[in-house]
């Protein structure tokens, strides 16, 4: 029996095929695996690196023995991981997906596809879902790599790692929704990228207001939250409001992106 697959799923298949053919998937995979490997490695090597730095600096002569470099632990590895993902990882994510609509709109590849019976909402949601799948896969691979190397180097396990990873994942999803909205609004990928960056800066600045930070999606990508979740310093009740508000905003921004794209002149 022939199963009629909905246009959204067909376009999602095309998006994933495109991501593989245009190396987006590979780039994301490699970059995030590197983050996963480098984080425990850097944490392990940090005392050695600091010692080399001190030895090569003549002005620090005599301080070497006096400087007590603490022995690294598994938490240092995860701290490095969180730092890498929330900074470089998010930047790579936005760079890779900021052109999700602009390249198709500028070339005109969507015009013929739209006359085949697929809606603009289907197209935007397929693109966003594809980006979300690649983001989830990349983060998972990175997380598992970090987990493996951390276990190998430090032979200790930490609780709440999945909760911390979930915060990072949701933070990425929020950024992707924001990227989709600006991609639907703008004509050029780099303008979309600048707007996402500017929005992130504004949201980070809003965190200076203590009452806002509890509900601010930018809090999810802050080092202190993820670190606090792993160490147990941040109680679940403290970050649940951030998760709920971020999830809600991700959905609202996605809906706004669909509305904007529906109105956009091709």
């Amino acid at each position, binding site marked *: 029996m022939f199963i009629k*697959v909905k246009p959204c799923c*067909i376009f999602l298949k*095309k998006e994933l095929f495109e991501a593989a*053919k245009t190396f987006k998937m590979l780039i994301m995979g490699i970059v995030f695996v590197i983050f996963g490997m480098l984080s425990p490695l850097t944490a392990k090597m940090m005392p050695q690196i600091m010692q080399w730095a001190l030895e090569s600096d003549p002005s620090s002569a005599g301080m070497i023995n006096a400087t007590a470099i603490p022995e690294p632990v598994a938490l240092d590895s995860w701290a490095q991981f969180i730092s890498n993902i929330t900074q470089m990882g998010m930047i790579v994510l936005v760079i890779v997906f900021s052109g999700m609509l602009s390249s198709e709109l500028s070339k005109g590849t969507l015009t*013929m596809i739209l*006359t085949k019976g697929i809606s603009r909402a289907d197209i935007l949601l397929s693109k966003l879902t594809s980006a979300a799948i690649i983001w989830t896969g990349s983060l998972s691979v990175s997380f598992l790599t970090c987990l493996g190397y951390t276990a190998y180097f430090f032979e200790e396990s930490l609780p709440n790692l999945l909760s911390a990873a979930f915060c990072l994942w949701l933070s990425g999803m929020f950024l992707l929704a924001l990227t989709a909205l600006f991609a639907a609004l703008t004509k050029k990928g780099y303008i979309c990228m600048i707007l996402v960056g500017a929005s992130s800066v504004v949201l980070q600045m809003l965190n200076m207001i203590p009452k806002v930070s509890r509900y601010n999606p930018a809090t999810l990508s802050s080092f202190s939250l993820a670190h606090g979740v792993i160490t147990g310093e941040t109680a679940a009740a403290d970050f649940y409001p951030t998760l709920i508000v971020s999830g809600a905003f991700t959905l609202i921004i996605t809906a706004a992106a669909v509305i904007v794209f529906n109105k956009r002149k091709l």
Partner: protein
Amino acid sequence: MSNVLSIKGLTKNFGNVEVLKGLDLSVPEGAVFGFIGENGAGKTTAMKIVLGLLERGEGEVIVCGEQARYGKTAAGVGFLPDVPEFYPYMKPMEYLTLCGEISGMKKREIKSRGEELLKLVGLSKAKRKIGGFSRGMKQRLGIAQALLNRPKLLICDEPTSALDPAGRKEILQILDSLKEQTTVIFSTHILSDVERVCDYAAFLHGGKIVLNGALSEIKKRQTDSYSITFSQSSDALRFKAALGGNDCRIDENGGNSVKVKNEDGGKIIALLSANNLVPLKFELLEHNLEDLYLKIVGGAGKCS
């Protein structure tokens, strides 16, 4: 013959610019319909509204029996843009498969129809990625994708404007071969292309259709030039004198023919009779499309 497309009083504004000012158009089923107009006349705007790619202002657009709706192209419509763009990493059959699946076609049907169409457009042996295709090859693949789900109406937006003469010839031959299969609307400002393949035409000017109908009828309807040949050049001179201030000239070749422009045929016959002049030949000179186009662009009112 029923109409596959019917547009009544269609308007469209872009800001303060009124592009379509009450466009009325009917396209009979089975026609190859030339949609003629200068650059910026609103041809693409009208087509995009028909395709549901652009919101309309006022008016009614019935395409393949259903009201055109923004955001949803009516079933049974195929579209070929002026410069079709594809995913460069795909092969022709992969692209047709994507289009077919989105259209809801069965896999087996996509394969057989895809192969049939690639053969029709001469791309059955092109197995490489579309990124390496020439513009002409992309145009031919564009026709194949537009015909994939056997559309009742094929809309082609200036399909030959970006091609070299050889590419134009190929595309026109393919469009000509589709006459039996589907209705074709073909927007262009290349008038020789219309004369070559179209049997109906409409001229869009100033946001309205100023001339519309079967091509042969349009040419006849707009004819107001005559050639009157006499046995002697003296008769030609007498007739010219009788015409007085009318727009006429003696033919250079032999001097026994008079060409009269912008005059009613009945009046000319009456004038010949009044002057006892018996012509050897009384001929109605048909306009070619270029004359008509220039006449319309120069002053729409005269052609209505």
